[in-house]
Structures are given as structure tokens and as C-alpha cells.
């Protein structure tokens, strides 16, 4: 079985070193289309393309199986990710055709079946589309929200792309001197309570060079992407996730400003403007002013923290340190207690620029930022689907029921029609003993000493461990590499690559006021501290 995986990966490598450009293998009609598009892009932005040629050559070597044609300039790639990666958020999708929900079980469209065609189709349309800045993915979602969204602006992910007209604002006046600025309707203002008698006001004006995206729990029009944390709740015999009615996520949590021109730098700021275009920090929020410049700044009550991965977000990446972002976009060390009134010391060597793979914690919800470039270089949906198919093609067998096990995935793998009618479909679901990693079908056998259903004896090696159903990790944004799916997170049972499992087991997420915890990115359940990942052994 391991051999199968090795073969799959080696064939990919062969593909990668193939001297014939992959584009030549496309049917001639498609080739023409691609060439036409490439020509039009080259003529429109020649300088831009030539700057990226060397990158493209490397990229072609690295990821020819990701994109079956030679990779177009990054500009184009950004445009084409959206139809494959996720549904565009409703607020931005007025002009776009509605993307199918990724978890739909309906027969996949031709674009769905052949990822490359989807990419091509996207490319044809993409010539007119605005460039993508990046994507925000809610940690703990696996291609879909764990419960029905409360607002149309809620989703598992949010695509940030260039707006028809700039939506950004930047600071124009510090302490305008008149209290009227607070009441002016069309002015964005930030008000901070410095002391009982003093309030600092800053006035912001439109900035044509940036686009602003606001994130928070509030569903009002000022917020572009609504996020609410979920909690587990008893539901009949099982448990289900529901939105937390007493969420600690701020209604106006944070804002991201993206430059409208390449390289589309994105920056993170704490707090978001409300419908009245105001940010009013509560009296409980830490504020301060610089003694030399008089510049004022502050933190939100529960804080917005940022974790930047060390190095490029790919195989071998290590998580960095958590930093706290201020309202004005400066970085500080984290407060020892989440809502402490004493701000941490400033960090001058780092900036609030979002790099690929950054995590943004909003005290309850953690978001992941993937830049458009990062998503293009990372594993594609097609590749992850291929890995999942490879797993099923190994035809692992249950040592107890002698059934061929089959991983189901709502959005990526469809069960062939001939197999769906088989008896005991549930017997074909893969389950694992977490202590040893032996994979079985679902069975009811318990060792003599097994008292509860939770801790059970593995029939193959007699080690006692939890017995959990395996599920595939589908959200490609969380994958650090495109290796074979050999590991699972413990105890939730989400299957992913070894490097992905290792990376996430090292990421400590803020938990409650001052604790740290590692979570499965696909379902946000807490990982076992002693054994967060388990290698799977198939029969």
C-alpha cells in the first residue's frame, strides 16, 4: 500500500521533470484558447510578465501537476483560484455567477471532475476579473461551516479581491481639535479614551490606494465577513457544533487593508469601523500615547493577535510567535492575560503585513490568511482529491469484516454508482484505534476488559486506545505540502499529510484567558497533548 503512494508520488515527480511543456499535451482547441489569453495578457502587461518569468520557470518545474498547463503569470493565477478554491462571499459576488457550495453532493460538473478544465474556464472568465489579494479561512472548518450560517456574510472562507472602487481609509488628522469630527457623517474616526478627562480622536479619509475589508461578529453593513465561534452541544445521542451565543469575538474585530497595486500587500489592524464609520475603544481597552510624537494608539479589549509562520508556508514551515496588533497597526508582545489593561512591550522589528499562512486570532475565532500567491503554490484541490482517490485505490481492507474500506468526502470523492448499493455501507467507513493507528471498518467487538465504548482493545495488537471514525481533511488551505495522506490528528480523526499534521500540532492557539492549546485545523477539536498525530496502518 505504501508502495502505491510512493508510485503515485514518483509519477508526479516524473511529470515534473518532463521536458515537454505540459501545455503541449492539451487538446489543440484548448491550447489555442490558452495561447490567446496568454498573448492578451502579455501585450497588456509585458513588463509585469517578464519580471515574473524566472519565478514561473521554477514554478513550472515544481508544480506542473497542479496546473496542467504552463503556469500563467501570477496575475492570472490569482484570478483563477476563486472558482476552484471557494465560494465568493455574497457581499462581493453581485456580478459573479453563484459558485456551487463546495459540500454539495450533486453530480459534479465537468469542471469539478477535471480540475484543469475548471482552471481553464476560470482563466477565460478571469481575464476580466479583478485580481485576488488572498483568502481568509476560518480555522476549524473543512470546506464548509460546521453549522448553518446565521448571516449570508458568514462562510468558512472569504476571498479578498480588488474592489471596483477603493474602499480604504487612512489617517489624515490626529486630534482635529474640534469635537465635531465625531459627528460628521462621512468621516471615519477613531476615538480612544486616554483618561477620565481626555479622549483622543483621529480622523481618517478615503485612500484611493487601498481596499479595506472589515471582519467582526456584527452582521451590519459595515462588516464584510461575519465570524462567530462555535461550541459543542449535546444533541440527542451525539454532539453537534452550534454558534456560541455568548461569543467573546468582538462585533467589530479587525480590518485588513490591501494595496490595490502589485504586490497587493495586505496589512492587519485591530478594530473595525461600525456603520457610523466610528471606532470607539471601550474604557477597558489599553491605550497610550507616545511621549515624543504624541501619537496615540490602543488595543481592543480582548485583543487581535497575529502569528506569522517562520519561512514560507510549505513543507518544513515552523510556527512563529504570537503578537498583538494595535488599532493603528503596530505590533506588541501579547498581554499575559488576554484582556489585561497593561499592553505588552512594543515590537519595532516586525510589521503588521500579512504573509502567507498567518493566523489571526480574534479571541474565539482564529482565521488563516492565505495570499493568492501562496494558494497558487500550495496543493490544489485537484491534487488533494487525487491523494484521496489514491487512498481509496489502495483498497484497504477491514481485518474484521473483510470489507474494502472507503473514505467518503462530501465534496471531493464521489462513490461510483455500482458501489453505493452494497450491503453495510457503514461497515466500509474507516475507523482507527488511536493508540496504534490500525485502521478497521466499524465493528462492535470489545476486548474482555473494555468497559466503555471509548477506550477499546485493538484486535490486531491488543493496545487499548480510543476508537474513532476517520474523516478526510478537505480544506486545501491548511495543507503545508502535497504528500500522501498517511497521518491523522488525534483524537478527532482527520486524515492529512504527515507534514501538515506535524505543523498544526506545533501551533499553539490562544485558549481562554491565558492558556494555549493545539487544535485540528479541520474541526478545531483540541489535539491530544501527548500524541497529537498518529500514523495510519492499513491492512
Amino acid at each position, binding site marked *: 500500500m505504501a508502495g502505491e503512494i510512493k508510485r503515485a508520488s514518483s509519477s508526479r515527480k516524473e511529470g515534473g521533470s518532463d521536458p515537454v511543456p505540459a501545455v503541449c499535451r492539451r487538446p489543440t482547441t484548448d491550447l489555442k484558447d490558452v495561447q490567446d489569453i496568454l498573448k492578451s495578457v502579455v501585450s497588456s502587461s509585458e513588463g509585469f510578465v517578464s519580471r515574473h518569468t524566472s519565478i514561473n520557470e521554477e514554478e513550472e518545474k515544481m508544480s506542473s501537476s497542479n496546473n496542467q498547463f504552463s503556469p500563467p503569470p501570477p496575475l492570472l493565477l490569482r484570478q483563477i483560484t476563486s472558482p476552484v478554491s471557494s465560494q465568493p462571499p455574497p457581499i462581493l459576488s453581485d456580478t459573479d455567477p453563484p459558485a456551487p457550495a463546495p459540500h454539495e453532493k450533486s453530480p459534479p460538473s465537468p469542471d469539478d471532475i477535471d480540475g484543469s478544465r475548471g482552471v481553464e474556464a476560470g482563466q477565460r472568465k478571469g481575464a476580466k476579473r479583478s485580481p485576488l489579494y488572498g483568502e481568509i479561512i476560518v480555522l476549524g472548518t473543512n470546506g464548509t461551516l460546521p453549522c448553518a450560517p446565521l448571516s449570508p456574510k458568514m462562510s468558512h472562507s472569504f476571498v479578498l479581491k480588488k474592489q471596483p472602487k477603493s474602499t480604504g481609509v487612512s489617517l489624515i488628522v490626529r486630534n482635529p481639535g474640534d469635537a465635531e469630527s465625531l459627528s460628521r457623517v462621512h468621516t471615519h474616526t477613531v476615538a480612544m479614551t486616554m483618561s477620565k478627562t481626555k479622549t483622543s480622536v483621529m480622523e481618517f479619509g478615503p485612500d484611493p490606494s487601498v481596499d479595506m475589508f472589515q471582519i467582526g461578529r456584527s452582521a451590519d453593513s459595515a462588516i464584510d465577513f461575519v465570524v462567530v465561534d462555535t461550541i459543542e452541544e449535546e444533541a440527542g445521542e451525539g454532539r453537534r457544533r452550534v454558534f456560541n451565543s455568548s461569543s467573546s469575538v468582538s462585533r467589530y474585530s479587525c480590518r485588513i487593508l490591501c494595496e490595490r497595486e502589485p504586490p497587493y500587500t495586505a496589512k492587519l489592524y485591530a478594530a473595525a469601523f461600525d456603520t457610523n464609520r466610528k471606532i470607539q475603544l471601550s474604557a477597558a481597552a489599553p491605550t497610550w500615547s507616545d511621549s515624543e510624537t504624541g501619537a496615540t494608539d490602543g488595543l481592543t479589549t480582548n485583543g487581535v493577535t497575529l502569528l506569522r509562520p517562520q519561512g514560507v508556508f510549505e513543507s518544513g514551515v515552523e510556527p512563529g510567535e504570537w503578537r498583538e496588533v494595535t488599532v493603528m497597526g503596530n505590533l506588541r508582545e501579547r498581554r499575559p492575560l488576554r484582556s489585561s489593561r497593561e499592553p505588552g512591550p512594543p515590537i519595532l522589528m516586525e510589521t503588521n503585513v500579512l504573509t502567507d499562512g498567518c493566523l489571526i486570532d480574534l479571541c474565539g475565532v482564529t482565521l488563516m490568511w492565505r495570499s493568492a500567491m501562496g494558494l497558487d503554490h500550495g496543493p490544489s484541490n485537484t491534487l488533494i482529491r487525487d491523494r484521496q482517490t489514491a487512498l481509496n485505490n489502495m483498497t484497504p481492507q477491514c481485518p474484521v469484516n*473483510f470489507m474494502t474500506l472507503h473514505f467518503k468526502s462530501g465534496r471531493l470523492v464521489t462513490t461510483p454508482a455500482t458501489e453505493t448499493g452494497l450491503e453495510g455501507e457503514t461497515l466500509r467507513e474507516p475507523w482507527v484505534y488511536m493508540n496504534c493507528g490500525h485502521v478497521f471498518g466499524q465493528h*462492535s467487538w470489545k*476486548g474482555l476488559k473494555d468497559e466503555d465504548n471509548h477506550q477499546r482493545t485493538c*484486535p490486531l495488537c491488543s493496545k487499548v486506545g480510543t476508537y474513532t471514525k476517520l474523516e478526510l481533511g478537505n480544506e486545501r488551505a491548511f495543507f503545508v505540502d502535497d504528500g500522501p495522506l498517511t497521518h491523522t490528528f488525534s483524537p478527532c480523526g482527520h486524515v492529512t499529510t504527515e507534514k501538515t499534521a506535524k505543523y498544526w500540532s506545533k501551533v499553539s492557539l490562544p485558549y481562554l484567558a491565558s492558556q494555549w492549546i493545539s487544535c485540528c485545523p479541520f474541526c478545531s477539536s483540541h489535539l491530544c497533548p501527548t500524541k497529537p498525530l498518529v500514523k495510519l496502518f492499513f491492512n
Partner: protein
Amino acid sequence: MAGLPKRILKETQRLLTDPVQGINATPDEQNARYFHVVVAGPKDSPFEGGTFKLELFLPEEYPMAPPKVRFMTKIYHPNIDKLGRICLDILKDKWSPALQIRTVLLSIQALLSAPNPDDPLANDVADAWKTNEHLAIQTGEESFLYMYFIFTSLLYFTRFCLLFNNFS
């Protein structure tokens, strides 16, 4: 009886198409859960050259419960009693559904090569075995001779039983 589970069908199929050396298991024509088994005495054991008939029955709960196995041929062995019942952990508390008919029969064959006198079913045989073995260890260098004596006497006794069985 409800239709045979897929597992039993598959096991039977594999036993017939890919038999284990020295073990022959054929399902009964009337009852697919009942197997007629013939195990050859393992090489370099007192039972070498003998063939032993067993019956194997798969209960309704199989594979969640172990198969029931019994020697039909009389055998002189500390872990097998006069009625042919076998004392083997995997047939009792150490059963696991990952075991199969094949592995059970292989374990029984191995039990013939390596008896376990500490967990006896036939006490007289086990006692004799133990006493002699004890003697053998005491006499040190001569132990090989004693072992040889024990094994050959066992062998001849078994053959005698076989003969007796065939005549009766």
C-alpha cells in the same frame, strides 16, 4: 439461518484456493459454518507423521466470538483433554476478531510442536511432562537424552492411540 456473512464466505474461499501446508479445512456440505479439518503432525515433533482430525464450528457471533474447535482424533498432549477439547488462549479470552480460521489452525499446529504444560487441561500428561522435564534439567548434560525419551514415549503413545482409534 441468515445468509452467511461476507467474511465467512471470503475465508472459506481463501482456505480452498490457498490452503496452508499441512492443514486441510473443508466446509461441511450441509452446514457452511462447520468445517472438517485435518492437521498433519508438525515436523520435528512427537506427532510428526500423524494426521489429526478436528472439527471447527463458527458460532453465530463469529468473528466477534471465537470458533469452537475440537480434536476428533485422540491425542496425548498436556493441553488437549480426552474429549479433544483444546486449551488455547486465543480460543478463549485472547480471541480477537482479527484472527481467522487459518490463524487458529496454525496456532493449534504450533501447540502440537510446543506444548504448554503450565496451563494444562490433561493434568496427568502435564505432570508426567513436568516431572520428566524437571529430572532432565537436574541431570544437566543428560537432559537431551531425557527429552528424547519423553518425546519418543509420547510419540509412540500417540501412534498407539491412533491405531486404537482406527480399529475401534
